[in-house]
Every structure is written in structure tokens, then in C-alpha cells.
């Protein structure tokens, strides 16, 4: 029963957080300060997800882990091609090779 309560309440809260501004900006204009800030949501969030995942996998500081060099190789592919698929197609085999050598 409690598991159901947690799932349903988390579902309602998550939907509310996803929908609130989509609902609100239909009625009010986006404040200019917020509009400026929104430009940086994607780079800021993406760095806040990616950098810790690569230098501290599993929340433990470990800059010598095999993910980091593999990600650098995948990152070069992404930079040259602007393609997610290329980053994966290059980065994942790079990880396999690094794990195989190490």
C-alpha cells in the first residue's frame, strides 16, 4: 500500500513540475530575466549530469577511471560530427578497448 502511495504521489508531483510552466506561459508572458536564463539550462544541466558521471562514477572521485578517456574519444567524435550516434559508435568501442588493454 505505501509503495502505491509513494508511486502515485511522486507521479503527481513529477507531472506538476513538468506541466507548471507549460500551463503558466499560456497565460503570462515569460519574464525577460527568465528568458535569458533559460538559454543556459541545457549547457548547465548537461554539464552537471555529465562531468560527475565521468570523473566520479558511482559518486566516488576517481579521475583515472576508464570512462573518462573513452568519453574524451567519443567527445571528439561528437564535436566533429555534432552527432549523438557518432559519440556512441566511437565512445563505446573505445571503452571496450580500454577495458581490454587495462
Amino acid at each position, binding site marked *: 500500500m505505501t509503495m502505491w502511495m509513494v508511486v502515485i504521489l511522486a507521479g503527481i508531483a513529477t507531472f506538476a*513540475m513538468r506541466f507548471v510552466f507549460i500551463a503558466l506561459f499560456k497565460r503570462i508572458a515569460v519574464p525577460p530575466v527568465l528568458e535569458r536564463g533559460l538559454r543556459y539550462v541545457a549547457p*548547465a544541466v548537461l554539464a552537471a549530469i555529465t562531468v560527475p558521471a565521468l570523473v566520479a562514477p558511482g559518486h566516488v572521485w576517481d579521475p583515472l577511471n576508464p570512462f573518462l578517456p573513452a568519453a574524451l574519444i567519443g567527445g571528439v567524435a561528437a564535436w566533429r560530427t555534432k552527432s549523438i550516434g557518432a559519440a556512441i559508435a566511437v565512445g563505446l568501442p573505445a571503452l571496450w578497448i580500454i577495458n581490454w588493454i587495462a
Partner: protein
Amino acid sequence: MATESGIAMRGGFKAVSPILLGVIPFGLIFGASAAASDVDQLAAWASSFVIFAGASQLAIVEVMGSGGAAVTALFTAIIINSRHLMYSADMGRYTTRESLGRRAGIGYLLTDQAYLVSSTRFPKPDTSKGVIPYYFGAALTLWTTWQIVTTAGFFLGSVIPDSWSLEFAIPLTFLALLIIAVRTKPALVAAIAGGIVAVGAIDLPYGIGLMAGAVAGIAAGMISERWLA
């Protein structure tokens, strides 16, 4: 459906296809760990469409499965998912002409991948005509995949050998999106600040470091505009 939006929708589908390589093993892992835990099985399975946010679903199963308090599980899930407030604000700029039903659908389907992939498409609100069908193409693909793979993980276990390291496709996806998103100098400042603060906060509970990094990054980007833009 007008062909123009059909093409945009297919564009969204194509854009998320490579991302599924990381989403599939993550969904299998969620399903498998839910099935292996002590929690109400039907509720854990239902969380894939009731909540539809993988990291928070996994956190709930972990907290509840290890005998943690329901309030802790709920609070953790809300913290982890609070980043959606920012996605909602950005998406909200492009959805003002949509009906209530479609806006509710856009909100329900709002995930990291759907938002971040679509955000590569909308630098200018006036020229972003195809953004909404593009978003739906991406978001519905992710939703359908998530339902299938979490259910499969439930019954089959995680199936894919750990040694394939397919989950590594997730950070690679976000890294590629990061590289695509850094198009201006202030955006680079935002990314550097966001990354540094998030790493500094790795010891904080999951989700808080992400939000701290995001807020610091946005602030740094806005402040740096004065000198760099």
C-alpha cells in the same frame, strides 16, 4: 497529419534512436532491480507510466526496498525530478498555441532526452514551427521504449551482459548533447560552472548536486553575458 509535421515527427524519432542504446539497458536494470526487491511489484512496475522518470523510479525502489521511510522515498524522487521545472519553463515558450490536452501530453512526456534533443532545435522561437511534432516524435519513442524495456527487465532480468557496458551510452549521449549545446561563450561558461559545482557536490544526495550545478551554471552564463556576448 500534415506532411510537414509528419516529417518533423520522424526527425524527432530519428534523433532519439541512437539514444535508445543507453535507455534500453537502463530500463532493463530498473525492471530487474524492481523485480528483485521487496517492494509491491505491481506498484514498482506501474511507476514506469505513473512517474515515467527512470532515476527517480530506481531511487524509490532502492529506498523502499531497503526498508526506508515512504516520506524519504517520495522526497528523494521529488528532488531528483525537480530539474523538470527548468525543462518545463523552456518548453513553455514553444507551447503557447497548443491545446490543453496537447500541453498536458507534452508535460507528461517531458524527460531529459526528449527536452534536450528538442532544445537543439529551438534557438529562435519564431522559426521553431516544427519543434512540437519533433518533440512528440522523440518523446513518444522514448515513452514506448521505456514501457517495453522496464517490463522486459521485470520478467527477464537485465539480460544484457554487464561487460558490454551499454549504460555508458547514457553519459555519451549527454556529453554529445553538451557539445552541441555549447554554441556561445556564455554557454561554455555555464557548462564549466555547472560541471565544477556538480562535481563539488558529489557527496550530497543524488539530485541536489545536479540542481546546484544547474543553478550555478545558469547564473554564471547570465553574468558572463555582460563581458562575452
